[in-house]
């Protein structure tokens, strides 16, 4: 499970080295895209831990969520409603839920391990 972490670091370094900056008007889109991506990632980890991981769902969800969030923000800008807040809210809530689930799963696993260790 080290490979994804290395990927994250590589991506970070890549982004920092290329020195790409998004124009001010598009920061909202990018932030919401980041949020969507994180949500998908965390969801994927959770699915993986719950053994319900499906690569098609994961990959399609990743891109679809990003596009959906960005278009929602775009629509919000044009409607004059801060619709991206809705996306932020939805993704935020889901992020927290997913992280909570992951935490519980990991905790259970750890407890089981410890119990097994104590038994032995």
């Amino acid at each position, binding site marked *: *499970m080290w*490979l*994804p*972490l*290395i*990927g*994250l*670091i*590589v*991506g*970070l*370094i*890549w*982004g*920092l080295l290329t*020195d*790409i*900056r*998004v124009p*001010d008007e598009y*920061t909202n889109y*990018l*932030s919401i*895209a*980041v949020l969507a*991506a*994180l949500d*998908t*990632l965390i969801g*994927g980890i959770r699915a*993986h831990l719950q053994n319900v*991981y499906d*690569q098609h769902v*994961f*990959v399609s969800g*990743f891109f679809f969520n990003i596009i959906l969030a960005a278009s929602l923000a775009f629509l919000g800008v044009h409607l004059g409603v801060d619709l991206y807040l809705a996306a932020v809210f939805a993704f935020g809530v889901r992020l927290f839920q997913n992280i909570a689930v992951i935490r519980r799963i990991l905790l259970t696993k750890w407890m089981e391990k410890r119990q097994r260790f104590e038994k032995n």
Partner: protein
Amino acid sequence: MERKKKIHFTVITTIIGFMLAVQFQTTNHPVVRDTRDMWELREDLKKEQELQRQLLEEIRTYETTLESYQQKRAESKENALRETVEELRKEAGLTEVRGQGVIITLQPFYAENYVGPVIQTVSPYLLKRLMNELNMYGAEEVAIADQRIINTTVIRDVNGITKVDNYKINSFPIQIKVIAEDAEKLYNRLKGSTVLEDFGIEGLQLEISQPMSNVVIPPYNDSLHIRYMKTVKAEKEE
């Protein structure tokens, strides 16, 4: 299956990392909130206006410089043309010329036992011969009886009177002014020339002055008629 999962996660984490980095860089330079009050704003505005004024002034200075340069260039073109024209005029003999040279005085010379008509004029052939000799000896500008000799000058006999460009040459003594680059040389060569004898046969005496440092030759007075010359239009180079 497990490997594929890993690759998917890696790709997606890489993308997320990249997006995070971009977002981080974008938001790392936050817009500083403008907290200036009216007076500060006014002052700043004044500063900016001052700056603008300065810039405008600078632009004006540079424009003036540019204009002066352009004017200079145009003038220099004009000057060059003028110089060329002046040079050509000089070459054509339309200007007064000063320089070192000699003055030849031509007058009748009667021998003691001379009987015959009074010599009233000098034959054009003799004058032409003298001219040729002078040219051979390095004369640059010549004037016969203050009549400038130019390229189109004619020396001819009209009804028994020698004329140089329609001006009669019949009142002795006739002064022939010659300017040469090296007057001394011209003088010496003339002294040794046979042209003196040729004149002597016709009863004329050539008196060659010592080389002078300042001989003034007048300009050609009449207008030049160019009849058989046309400007050539610049042909396209092939």
